[in-house]
């Protein structure tokens, strides 16, 4: 097992190539594999069979938490902990509490969205077999890569290599684990 590579990487030149290659790898039944692209490619999620991102759920939780925090903060400070008469206005009203709660909704949603994106992506991860490969420089520049991981149950060094060749992949190499 020690000599087992992390996976196989193949290079593709154009966005249509990677799009069709992704459909083929998906249909071959692989689960642990990925495309490395310099920019988000329209429709590649569906071609890969990646399901819709779950970031919005985390964002929603952040938004609800932010709004609640705003309302409770203002109720606690101005109406409960130290009520102070200012201009004969009520100690608490959702009307004047709204602008601050609104801003906190946005603030907490932003943090939840970005935090959620990092958590779901497993980032930061500064060491990764893909980053060690010589291909990554081009994969972020103008090439498109397919990486199939060795831990995939369907992975077989020769069969997988044949699949990548078959779908038009070039410079197929093993990735060091």
């Amino acid at each position, binding site marked *: 097992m020690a000599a087992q590579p992390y996976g196989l990487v193949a290079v593709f030149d*154009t*966005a*249509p190539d990677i*799009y069709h290659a*992704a459909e083929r790898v998906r249909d071959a039944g692989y689960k642990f594999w*990925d495309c*490395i*692209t*310099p*920019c*988000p*490619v*329209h*429709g*590649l*999620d*569906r*071609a*890969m069979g*990646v399901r*819709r*991102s*779950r*970031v*919005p759920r985390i*964002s929603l939780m952040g*938004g609800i938490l932010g709004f609640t925090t705003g309302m409770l*903060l*203002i109720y606690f*400070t101005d109406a409960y*902990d130290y009520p*102070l008469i*200012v201009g004969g206005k009520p100690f608490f009203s959702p009307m*004047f509490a709204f*602008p*601050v709660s*609104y*801003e*906190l909704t*946005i*603030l907490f*949603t*932003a943090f939840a*969205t*970005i935090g*959620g*994106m990092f958590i*779901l*992506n497993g*980032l*930061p*991860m*500064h060491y*990764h077999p893909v980053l060690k490969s010589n291909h*990554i*420089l081009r*994969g*972020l*520049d*103008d090439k498109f890569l397919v990486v199939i991981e060795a831990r995939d149950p369907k992975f077989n060094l020769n069969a997988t290599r044949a699949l990548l060749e078959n779908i038009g992949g070039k410079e197929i190499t093993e990735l060091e684990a």
Partner: protein
Amino acid sequence: MAHAAESNYPTPAILQEVKPAVLPRATLVENNRSFGWVTDKICGIIEGKTPTWWWVCFVLAAMVASFTIAGLIYLVATGVGVWGHANPVNWAWDIVNFVFWIGIGHAGTLISAILCLLRQKWRTSINRAAEAMTIFAVVCAAIFPVFHVGRVWFAWYLFPIPSANSIWQNFRSPLEWDVFAVSTYGTVSVLFWYVGLIPDLAILRDRFTAAGNRLRGFLYGIFAMGWRGSNRHWSNYEMAYLILAGIATPLVLSVHTIVSFDFAVSLIPGWHTTIFPPYFVAGAIFSGFGMVLTLMLPLRAIYGLEDLITQYHIDCMCKITLATGTIVGYAYGMEFFIAWYGANPYEGFAFINRAFGQYAWAYWIMITCNVLTPQFFWFKSIRRNTALVWVLSIFVNVGMWFERFVIIVTSLARDFVPSSWGYYSPSVVEIFTFFGTFGVFSVLFLLFIRFLPVMPMAEIKAVMPQGDPHGHPASASGHGNHGAH
């Protein structure tokens, strides 16, 4: 997949007969450049040797910035009285400058968020620099209210932090709303900017490491968070970016709305009007686009970015400036109408006084710069004259500063009781402090263009024809069926 099926449908017979005009999509990157060219061009700005003009500008900007620093040190050492405010004008240049700078920032968020939601793909080549402009403008804006509080070391009293005084902030005041609006705006702008930077920082990390500059590779690498262009990551990233755009849109509208509440919620004639929120937002976007043009046109010329910031981009920016400038002009007219129609003698007097009173000079500078200047952008020949567009954009900046001056100072100098009338002139300290903020802004912007990619490479690639997985040729028609996805 779906589009492939759609394009297989036979063309309806009616279309064969009427032959509707097929309008070409504007090319966003000219000369059919490759992905590699985009990467090399934008990274080349950072990787190349520091140009001489950069050092000249940097030193000049730092010298200008020292005026703000000296002004603030003098203020803290002496007291807030070194500024020219006195009864009845207790809000003056500080708040004028604050609103001016905050307004400038708004174009950055408009470009990055609202145009993203509206799928205006031309935003990609200008959004990074515009977002940087937003952040630096918020930095400059924040200086003024923070130092206007007088004892700046107590500025943390603005936030609900428990203290030995036990007393809390007054959340019934729009000034406290503003604290939350501006600090949220600053924070979210930084987050949005940073998220956009991650894929580009990853490119820089790998390029610097490959070139043997391990230190810079390491530094970019820390902030790139180990980004590796994985499509499983892009999926979450795109969703996060869309949500950020979705929340930054109400944010940018609410921030200037709340800034206008600082005035509109008070009872001063000329301030107490319901038109303020939309009028302030339109003015903010107008001034921000003025500043974007002021910054981007020289950048485009110096770095030869004509293929990325095309004439089409300049046209779009000029047209938005024209539209928002006209909205602002409408608001000026409507304010007068309501002052007359509302039949409130104080309100009526405030507006007559603005146009013909002691500050009439400022009012007419404002009208000339904000209402007349953008009207030139109706003409294609003017939009194509880059130098002229740049000069006009400066007029927009000047005009919008005077707008805030007119609103704030004229209303305070002539309120209800003639016995409390006065005339306000700024002190030298105040003038220098404001002058210096242009230096602070320029220093930050110069550092940005030297060390960070001025354009989002990944986003530009995504709108190039090579980034389209369905193989449409460059700028061809037939992109229409993409709209729904």
